[in-house]
């Protein structure tokens, strides 16, 4: 008798209900299946009306983030056998409005991201560069970790401040700002300071640290934020003590 496992999936159909409900599906417990494979089995053979996002199925596009047994996970990189014998509770990511079933609205993040100017700010902006800007492997190591963010939003789901404070920029946005601040080719740290050193920026963070735990790519956004707090604080102090020095 082949192994089976139960998925308890959150459903929300705005045309007919005010609140999410839970629907159970029993699926085969295949050793190689990720939770995403389980959901695909449900959609393809049991219930075509289940909606969720997915694309690459290899943990690099960031589409398939959901809450699995209370934890924010990439469903393509989380395996059914990890939850044996089940049941597995699958809900949409926390701290985001739910559009439908397991699909959340991430427009808030998409609006906040450009605010931190997550692009290389470099004075010499030629239309046709002749050669590369030099950058040693050591320079690259300084920011490489923060460049690994796949925008999966698991950190936003894990962070209680994101749920409590509407304006908080959030872990991924700040980590991306740091990725550019620490890039040896970048010259825009000052421009980002005004956005980051605010209550909606780094000072809203109280170092809960859940974002780093949730991150599937090892970006360590909590570390990025605390490091920036030090930078912002020393910068403030310096301009207070030595106002004649242009920062």
């Amino acid at each position, binding site marked *: 008798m082949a192994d089976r496992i139960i998925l308890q999936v959150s459903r*929300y159909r*705005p*045309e*007919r*209900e*005010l*609140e*999410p409900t839970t629907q159970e599906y029993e699926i085969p417990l295949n050793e190689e299946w990720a939770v995403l494979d389980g959901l695909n089995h449900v959609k393809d053979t049991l219930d075509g009306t289940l909606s969720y996002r997915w694309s690459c199925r290899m943990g690099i596009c960031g589409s398939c983030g959901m809450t699995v047994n*209370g934890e924010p996970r990439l469903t393509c990189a989380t395996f059914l056998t990890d939850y044996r014998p089940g049941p597995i509770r699958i809900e949409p990511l*926390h701290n985001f*409005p*739910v*559009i*439908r079933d397991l699909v959340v*609205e991430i427009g808030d993040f998409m609006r906040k991201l450009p605010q931190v100017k997550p692009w290389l700010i470099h004075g010499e902006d030629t239309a046709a560069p002749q050669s590369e800007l030099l950058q040693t492997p*050591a320079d690259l190591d300084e920011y490489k970790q923060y460049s690994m963010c796949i925008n999966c939003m698991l950190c936003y789901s894990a962070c*209680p401040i994101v*749920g*409590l404070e509407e304006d908080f920029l959030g872990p991924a946005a700040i980590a991306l700002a740091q990725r550019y601040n620490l890039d040896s080719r970048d010259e825009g740290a000052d421009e980002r300071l005004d956005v980051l050193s605010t209550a909606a920026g780094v000072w809203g963070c*109280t*170092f*809960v*640290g*859940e974002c*780093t*735990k949730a991150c599937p790519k090892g970006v*360590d956004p*909590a*570390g990025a934020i*605390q*490091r920036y*707090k*030090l930078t912002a604080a020393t910068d403030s102090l310096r301009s207070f003590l030595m106002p004649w020095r242009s920062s």
Partner: protein
Amino acid sequence: MSVRYTEFHPRWYRPPMSVFWWAGRRSYLIFVLRELSSIFTAWSVVFLLLLVHAVSEGSRQYRQFLNLSSNPWMLTLNVITLAFLVFHAVTWFNLAPQAMVVRLRGNRVPRSAIAGAHYAGWALLSALAAWLILR
């Protein structure tokens, strides 16, 4: 109650965040306790200032202070404060490496070294204080 849904304007569901959001998860609970520990840290500072004030006012004030301190409620409070102080120190020392990236000769100093340095400093200062008080 009826569900009114306007075609093309889906109603997003916004899950409410409970006042007890921190109670449902171990990591959140520890976080809130850590934040609360600052109240007890502040109390320990106040207590220390009261002690210093009592000492500076003379032996009668000092004896009053000692009587106050040996009161069972005060004792309980201070034991709890001590527990929270240790908790405060341990959690922050363990988090320090995440906020401090120190490079020595191009290589990152390992996290254990940074946390270890904090503990070492704490131990050193405690040893010094103990020696000063107990000699």
